[in-house]
């Protein structure tokens, strides 16, 4: 089973150098985006209601209303 998986990985990704390098770079980008997204979400959960993006709606709306008047 594992052997079949390893063989398929080898055949699809590692056998050709161009594909191998491309997959490494694409994987790096994908992992970075995934990691940043998930950690940012955890961080915002830690600090719910404390950051500027949580409170700015009050003041943005206020400014727009003043402009309308």
């Amino acid at each position: 089973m594992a052997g079949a998986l390893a063989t398929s990985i080898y055949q699809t990704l590692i056998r050709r150098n161009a594909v191998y390098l491309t997959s490494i770079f694409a994987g790096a980008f994908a992992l970075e985006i995934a990691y940043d997204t998930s950690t940012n979400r955890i961080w915002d959960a830690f600090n719910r209601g404390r950051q500027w993006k949580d409170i700015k709606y009050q003041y943005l709306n206020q400014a727009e209303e003043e402009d309308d008047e």
Partner: protein
Amino acid sequence: MLARTVLRSVPFRGFARQSLNKTSSRASSSAAGSESTSSPFHLTVTASVATAIALGSATYLYGQEAFAMTPAEEGLHATQYPWEHAKWNKTFDHAALRRGFQVYREVCASCHSLTRVPWRSFVGVTHTVDEMKVFAEENEYDTEPNDQGDIEKRPGKLSDYIPAPYHNEEAARFANGGALPPDLSLIVKGRHGGCDYIFSLLTGYPDEPPAGATIQEGMNFNPYFPGTAIAMARVLFDGVVEYEDGTPATTSQMAKDVVEFLNWAAEPEMDDRKKMGFKALTLLTGLFALSVWVKRYKWAPIKTRKIVYSPPVPRR
């Protein structure tokens, strides 16, 4: 000196003994054995007393901790408060920063400068761009010299720094009875106790100085200030500021908000720093676990192998 006299006394006594007892050779104080050659009791006592005095005086001179200041000069130690923003995974409470900036503008800024903070640094932290532009334009700044070399005044821009209430130190001292109000940009980093100290100082003014405390004209009593006599009077009273978000403006609420604001002014990078630290620690924990696994994987055959010695078979 003492040791020399002790040494000198030895040959005399040895000589006296020699005359009595011809068979014994010249006695030395270090030789142990029969009673006639051992060191006399009073020599031991003298040496012990001398050593004790030397050690005692050295300890008295150099071994004690020196307290140059009286407790009053040291100031009362600030109470430690559980600051929410000081926790490792908490950012500043930006609503509190906004309130704190309001307190600074309406109360502190009449005497204290905040010269290292530009208007732009508030944008996206406590205020919107438009709000900050209005604040900046309320102040006038010098222009670059024009064609005739004259320096004119222009309204402030976001890139300008918050203007100081006094032009220079002398003007500040003159207006405050000789005392210089310190710049507040880095005050949280610049004082022992940081947030705790400033909060205690702001809220620690007693209604009247305690009995026995002498306060000079123009000075105020505050137990948390080193020396207890501070030129700044109590400024935070309930309701001095009216918060726009409806928070009750009690003394401690205003002090807490302005302390958190001053902490932000001293460490504006704290939010990002903690976030990056959180990400880095998480990632490095995973990498560390991986490296432990690799080490065990590589070492398992080495650790579990068995070396067997088979002696060479002797030839017949």
